[in-house]
């Protein structure tokens, strides 16, 4: 299964779409937002807040891109080819999930590094650790949603659905513009999104607050929903062989 993860990661890193949307774009948007005074608060606060937003945005891009890959693989007959190797279906699914989880690391690392090196963000070590872990582990629900789409939909429509979902969640979740700037009705909706809870956990930690129970419960609930969806998509895809 390690071989499978290695092969998939190699493919991911050579995927121009992933590199642009998952790594380059979030870093560029981060630097533009923070250095053109488009981000809220004073300069250092803005650099921290937007760093978390853009790292979350990049991680979302990576997580959904991985799901689109599944649909592409199915269309290419690759999933069938894998079934003709000694790998078990469980190993293949687990390998793809691991690929998704590892594949978001460069997105998060790139934005955090830009924060440290360009915007001189400083945080106490334990806050750095908590932010990195939460940004990383919090991508699992999105990976599952992306995989569900990838299993359920055909190549082209899976990629479209994943990009649309990713952008909707990013914008509605307040990753581009803070939800504080939203009209109140939109803000009410935004605060139910998984992307808002996901980034919210790290926003609060970055500024020395404890994450709210609501954020943790909400993200866990979405994890459950998307997990069920991914299993449903996988079973459906299996029936079509």
């Amino acid at each position: 299964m390690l071989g499978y993860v290695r092969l998939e990661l190699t493919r991911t890193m050579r995927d121009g779409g992933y590199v642009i949307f998952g790594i380059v774009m979030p870093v560029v948007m981060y630097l533009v937002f923070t250095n053109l005074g488009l981000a809220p608060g004073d300069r250092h606060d803005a650099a921290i807040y937007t760093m978390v937003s853009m790292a979350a945005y990049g991680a979302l891009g990576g997580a959904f891109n991985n799901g689109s890959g599944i649909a592409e693989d199915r269309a290419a007959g690759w999933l069938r080819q894998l079934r003709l190797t000694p790998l078990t279906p469980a190993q293949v699914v687990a390998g793809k999930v691991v690929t998704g989880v590892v594949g978001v690391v460069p997105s998060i690392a790139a934005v955090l590094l830009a924060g440290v090196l360009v915007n001189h963000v400083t945080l106490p070590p334990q806050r750095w650790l908590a932010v990195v872990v939460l940004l990383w582990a919090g991508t699992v629900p999105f990976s599952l949603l992306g995989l569900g789409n990838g299993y359920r939909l055909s190549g082209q429509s899976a990629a479209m659905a994943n990009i649309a979902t990713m952008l909707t969640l990013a914008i509605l979740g307040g990753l581009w513009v803070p939800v504080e700037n939203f009209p109140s009705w939109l803000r009410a909706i935004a605060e139910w999104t998984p992307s808002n809870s996901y980034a919210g956990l790290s926003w609060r930690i970055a500024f020395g607050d404890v994450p709210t129970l609501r954020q943790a419960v909400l993200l866990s609930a979405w994890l459950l929903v998307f997990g069920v969806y991914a299993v449903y998509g996988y079973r459906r895809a299996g029936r079509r062989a």
Partner: protein
Amino acid sequence: MTAKSSDAVSLTSATKRFGPVRAVDGLTLAIPRGQTVALLGPNGAGKSTTIALLLGLLPPDSGRAALFGLDPEQAVRQGLVGAMPQEGGLIPRVTVRELLAFVAGTYAAPLPLDRVLALARIGDLRDRRVDRLSGGQAQRVRFAMALCGDPDLIVLDEPTAALDVEARREFWDGMRGLASQGKTILFSTHYLDEADEHADRVVVLGHGQVIADGTSAEIKRAVALTTVSVTADGESAWLATLPGVRHMEIRGGRVHLRSGDPDATVMALARAGAVRGLEVVPAGLEDAFVALTTGKESV
């Protein structure tokens, strides 16, 4: 272990329906270890579905599929099987070497990569990206994926479809090498000469059933297509009643008798003193195939 004594491939009354169509209809087939078997049939005869059933890619609606006495999925998991589906199986953004190293790594005792590259004749492609290969090159890489685990059973669905004449010859040279190592090989093809030349045994499918099964010589014999012809001399209708003759045609002053027992036909012609300009032409497998699959003759 029971697997040691079992056939490499065994389908027992296997049936698979797609809606109202019976793609495979009560098919029974046993292939002992070490045989090279051609699966021959027109499009829609059920070749690919048969292969999907025996590889465990599709579950049969009824009946049973087994490889080496095991459930197909189990046999695949134990690395006993290498297969090349009719199409697909290649992914973008990896090199030939990376792809083959990965597939080999999933088997417990794979062939060395250099050996696989040599067998599939793709040594010069090892560092090329898989998505930048020509059709024939891609086909050889797909073939290499089926070989890399050094499996006992190799299943190939239309293996030479995208290859030119030279590449086909090279491909069959490689296959002969594998067959001589005792591998069991099952391939489907629509190139009848390939079935004729390269298979120990030819299984002809039609409408999801086995309609003929034997060596290519046996199949040709069974469909009575050896043509015995003599120069016509006066009234010739009686020739149609000679032993073995199933069909007669008079063309260009010659009588063409299609015989199921050419020896007997020739002897009878000789006894009747009718041997003038005798020609005996064994049928090609192609004629047999057409006859079988259009149902004009029965085996």
